[in-house]
């Protein structure tokens, strides 16, 4: 049988079917868990963009989310309306995605009601080098976005400028040293996103009260 020219083909078919079945059933069995984990991870990022403490425990997180966050839809995609402990509107969260050095960088930008000021930022997915470009997820970097204006300066130009030294101007953000490509691509895509965002129905229309 082993000398038959069909034997290698049969062997590979059986082997592929077996391992394919094992891997697929494992993926099926853990699908709910993986999705729940990804959802929880994403929600924690949204809350962290608003500087809200996100509980690690899944049930507590789900309760907090359903009490404080509304998921809304706009032509530009899903966005989030987040309220404070007292029910007052904190702001809106918008998802963004742009190129990084190794792959796309996506995240959530929290904006104050009225759409003039950034509340915070969180990065949900990226493939940047750990310790270099990957440092965009660290608190010191993200913290710099708090209070930054959405609109470009009156004289024109980008809303945000990344600099490789401690920032001196209100529009400046200190970039990650050694991760020039990550920083410059992020700077460009964030500025483009901010420009589009100012036309977003949630901010431009009467909803942003």
């Amino acid at each position, binding site marked *: 049988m082993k000398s038959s020219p069909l034997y290698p083909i049969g062997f590979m078919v059986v082997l592929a079917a077996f391992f394919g079945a094992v891997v697929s059933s494992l993926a099926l069995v*853990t699908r709910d868990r993986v999705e729940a984990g990804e959802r929880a991870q994403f929600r924690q990022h949204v809350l962290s963009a608003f500087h809200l403490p996100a509980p690690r425990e899944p049930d507590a997180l789900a309760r907090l989310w359903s009490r404080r966050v509304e998921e809304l839809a706009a032509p530009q995609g899903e966005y989030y309306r987040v309220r404070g402990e007292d029910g007052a509107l904190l702001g809106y969260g918008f998802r963004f995605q742009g190129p990084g050095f190794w792959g796309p960088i996506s995240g959530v930008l929290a904006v104050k009601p009225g759409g003039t000021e950034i509340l915070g930022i969180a990065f949900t997915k990226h493939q940047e080098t*750990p310790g270099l470009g990957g440092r965009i997820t660290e608190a010191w970097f993200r913290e710099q976005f708090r209070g930054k204006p959405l609109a470009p300066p009156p004289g024109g130009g980008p809303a945000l400028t990344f600099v490789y030294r401690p920032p001196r101007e209100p529009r400046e953000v200190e970039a990650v040293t050694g991760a020039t490509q990550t920083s410059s691509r992020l700077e460009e895509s964030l500025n483009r996103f901010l420009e589009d965002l100012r036309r977003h129905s949630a901010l431009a229309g009467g909803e942003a009260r």
Partner: protein
Amino acid sequence: MRPTLWLRRSLGVSTLRRGIWDDNPIYRQILGICSALAVTNLLVNTAVMSAGLVFVTAMSSFTVSCLRTVTPKRVRMMAQVLIIASYVIVVDIAIKAYLPAISEALGPYVGLIITNCIIMGRCEGFAAKNPPVLSFLDGLGCGIGYGLVLLTIAFFRELLGFGTLFGAPVLPDGFTRWVIMVMPPGAFFMLGLVMWLLRTVQKPRSPAEGG
């Protein structure tokens, strides 16, 4: 029989020891270098990557060895890649399901375990000709050997590059971070130093062996 003598004579133990020390994949076989350079600037990432590789190498070697008598010669590499890829996906799914935070930090690295030459090297070089349990031990030994060298490199890179160990600050605030340790050149320097050091230490054990 004295225990040390038994340890030396047992085939299983010597197979395990060969992967960890005598014929370590990193500083003896010079395999798996890409990941040794890529993931070693943070200890947490290195530890998860090493654990994943230990599992994949041991299980792939075991499976390839179990199938060695029925695998046709011409398609053996195809079969090995299929087996290795399946185990890598298993690791990826397991990390995603049970350690979502680590999965996010590692990003694409887990999937890249499949490109690690050590795994296929052990499948081709050992598991295809040896019985399953011995192949399992061989894979285990090589995985552990790889992990130990990587953790050593990561220890110094994280300590000098970030002043932290497993993310916890251990050096005083005044310490000037060695940025080069975080970047790829730091990995080359560390890897070179580790190879030089360990091969020097090892030399008296195998005088006949060439570099």
